[in-house]
């Protein structure tokens, strides 16, 4: 699960002189199974397609079982309530704001919602990926995001009570991001220290800390920082200087290109850290082969602590962005971006660059699910099922390898004409 160092090129040994075109093709398939980045992209795409196929089956089955007033199809007493194709049409095209209808502009509100989700998912995806590369399963990004969000909100509110005007305009956003990073980082350092120095399994501690973060933030907001004018358990609204300015997009979409840009900067930063710095080298080594890392002079305890702190900081920044871009305040009941970060990272093979695309996909799914909820009767929880299926399929590359081999062999046996490509076409 590692590699894609800066040092790779498509290592193609000279193709074996083969009289059989198909054995070459098969060779390539097998070799593809060994090159990681290419394979990973292929697997991610296949997983997506396959989960859509299974999703179609589920929607159809559910549509047959559900009762409704105006079915899409009916044959005798059997009725089909949901139209799977329309569902996926809404899910994907809807999330982009219907690009194939006239007058489409990329600045539409639905696409903004997609990018808004994407932006935060990039941060949580990076957070999980960074820890994962260090061999640490950080399930606590959610908690780190909550603490980071709270820290950012409180800090900006506090700063807003001191200064305003131009200084605030240049200062507040960096300040909020920093506060988020520190809050999330410190919260990530707890399981980090527990793992590094007390050998406590981070999967468990981070899960528990998620619950704790929810409670603690509820307590703090409710008892100390509540907005007296609101019914909701939330802080006061941040000063405008502390909210991301919307660029090009309508301010009411709660999306800021600036935030997306910052997210992409962080992607670059994490990539650079992992691939081009000695610390990144230590981290990756400790992640895939701790014994070798130790041999190479890596202080594993410190690496664990640092990685989880950094991972927490990324999650915390995600929280800060959520507060400063989306909500404009801290409110209890933060959505599960942290958990979604795990799925983003897994789909991306823990690669920071891949995380951008994975985050975009899940951003589409999240924002598309609202369109589905609005436009169809199909329960939007479908998206949750799809998410699980994608991860399941991503977890079993062997399945695709077997399919790939079968495909190649079958093709060869029949000496058929080249119609490669999976059966998953919808």
């Amino acid at each position: 699960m590692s590699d894609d160092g800066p040092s790779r090129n498509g290592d193609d040994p000279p193709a074996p002189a083969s009289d059989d075109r198909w054995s070459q093709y098969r060779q390539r398939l097998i070799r593809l199974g060994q090159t990681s980045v290419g394979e990973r992209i292929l697997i991610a795409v296949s997983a997506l397609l396959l989960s859509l196929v299974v999703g179609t089956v589920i929607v159809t089955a559910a549509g047959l079982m559900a009762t409704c007033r105006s079915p899409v199809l009916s044959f005798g007493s059997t009725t089909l309530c949901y139209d799977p194709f329309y569902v996926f049409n809404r899910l994907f095209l809807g999330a982009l704001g219907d690009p194939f209808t006239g007058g489409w502009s990329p600045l539409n509100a639905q696409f903004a919602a997609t990018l808004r989700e994407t932006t935060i998912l990039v941060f949580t995806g990076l957070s999980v990926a960074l820890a994962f590369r260090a061999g640490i399963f950080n399930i606590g990004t959610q908690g780190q995001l909550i603490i980071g969000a709270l820290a950012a909100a409180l800090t900006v509110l506090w700063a807003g009570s001191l200064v305003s005007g131009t200084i605030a305009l240049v200062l507040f956003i960096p300040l909020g991001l920093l506060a988020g990073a520190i809050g999330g980082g410190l919260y990530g350092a707890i399981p980090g220290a527990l793992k590094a120095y007390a050998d406590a399994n981070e999967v468990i501690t981070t899960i528990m800390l998620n619950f704790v973060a929810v409670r603690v933030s509820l307590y703090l907001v409710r008892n100390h920082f509540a907005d007296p004018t609101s019914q909701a358990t939330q802080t006061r609204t941040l000063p405008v200087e502390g909210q991301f300015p919307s660029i090009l997009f309508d301010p009411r979409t709660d999306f800021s290109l600036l935030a997306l840009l910052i997210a992409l900067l962080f992607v670059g930063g994490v990539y650079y850290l992992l691939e081009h710095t000695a610390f990144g080298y230590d981290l990756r080594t400790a992640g895939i082969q701790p014994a070798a890392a130790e041999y190479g002079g890596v202080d594993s305890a410190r690496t664990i602590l640092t990685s989880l702190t950094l991972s927490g900081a990324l999650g915390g920044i995600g929280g800060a962005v959520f507060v400063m871009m989306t909500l404009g305040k801290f409110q209890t009941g933060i959505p599960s971006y942290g958990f979604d970060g795990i799925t983003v990272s897994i789909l991306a093979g823990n690669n920071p660059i891949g995380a951008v695309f994975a985050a975009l996909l899940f951003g589409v799914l999240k924002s598309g699910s609202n369109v589905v909820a609005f436009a169809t009767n199909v329960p939007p929880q479908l998206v949750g099922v799809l998410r699980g299926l994608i991860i399941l399929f991503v977890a079993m590359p062997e399945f695709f390898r077997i399919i790939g081999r079968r495909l190649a062999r079958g093709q060869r046996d029949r000496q058929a004409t080249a119609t490669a490509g999976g059966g998953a076409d919808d």
Partner: protein
Amino acid sequence: LGGDGGDGDGGDGGDTDSDGGDGGDSGPAARVGMVYATGGLGDGSFNDQAQTGAIRAADELSIEYDESQPEAVQDFGSLQQQYAQSSNPDYDLVCCIGFLQADALTETAEQYPDQNFMIVDSVVEADNVGSYVFGEHQGSFLIGLMAAKLTSQDFSAGAGSTQGDSASVGFVGGVEGDLIGRFEAGYKAGVKHAEEDVEVQSAYVGDFNDPSGGQEAALSMYESGADIVYHAAGNTGTGVFRAAQEAGRFAVGVDRDQSVTKADFSDVILASMVKRVDNAVYTSVESVVNDNFEGGAVNTLGLEQNGVEAVYGQQLGSEIPQGVKDEVSEVRQSIIDGDISVPTDPDNA
């Protein structure tokens, strides 16, 4: 989107067939979009009550409605906007259920000045939004009064009975917050108003959808002497009812007449603090149909407006001593008349 006048597919299951026919030929009198609170339908209280209003409007006013159950706060804005934006079909009214939608609606309403909205449980100051808030504390006051009276006497009905030797009642909240705090405050004040020395145990489960937690909280209260537990905890309350049955004590429902909607528990539900969210939905729809929708109005629905009511349980109501009932109605009148003022903050109750 086709021509489906869909209503989700069935809501509580009772409305699937009978009311479908009227939309087809002449077109509906109005089309309404429902954006529910995050607890989702099937909570047996708040959202279901709002849906009841929509169903009634569909039946009686020949309107059609579509509904969405958002999963998180940031989905509110998106769904509100989709309804507002939609031109095929065009929505005459978008109902936003729950105070958490207020912030999103403030923005959406400004963005779509021609779209009518209504919001429940919060005030949004905009010309195209009708706000409906309730006097939960007032209704809860009556529940507290009744509970205090009953726990101080020997009373048994249905599957429950009070313990003679203790005078104690309980309150189970979902998540701490201002709104639920109003229920608690009114309830506590009502108890104190009736009997100074009745103990009120109160606990928050931390979740509106955790029946097990509700069950455990209520059981512990019954165990420490409570006879009646009132919940304002959405679906968490289901566990409170379970606990009442198990302990052989009583419970009080919230939002709807839960002795009807949770009929399994009608043998322990003394009463319910009904919050007529359905009426709020219905009247707002009605005003749209009748073309007299009043944007910017804040409708406070207290006891006086029948916005909140203490409704006695279907099965047990008849067994509650008339004396208690009489006192409840007297106090109700006093509240309406302003003779009793009910606190809204549990710490001052």
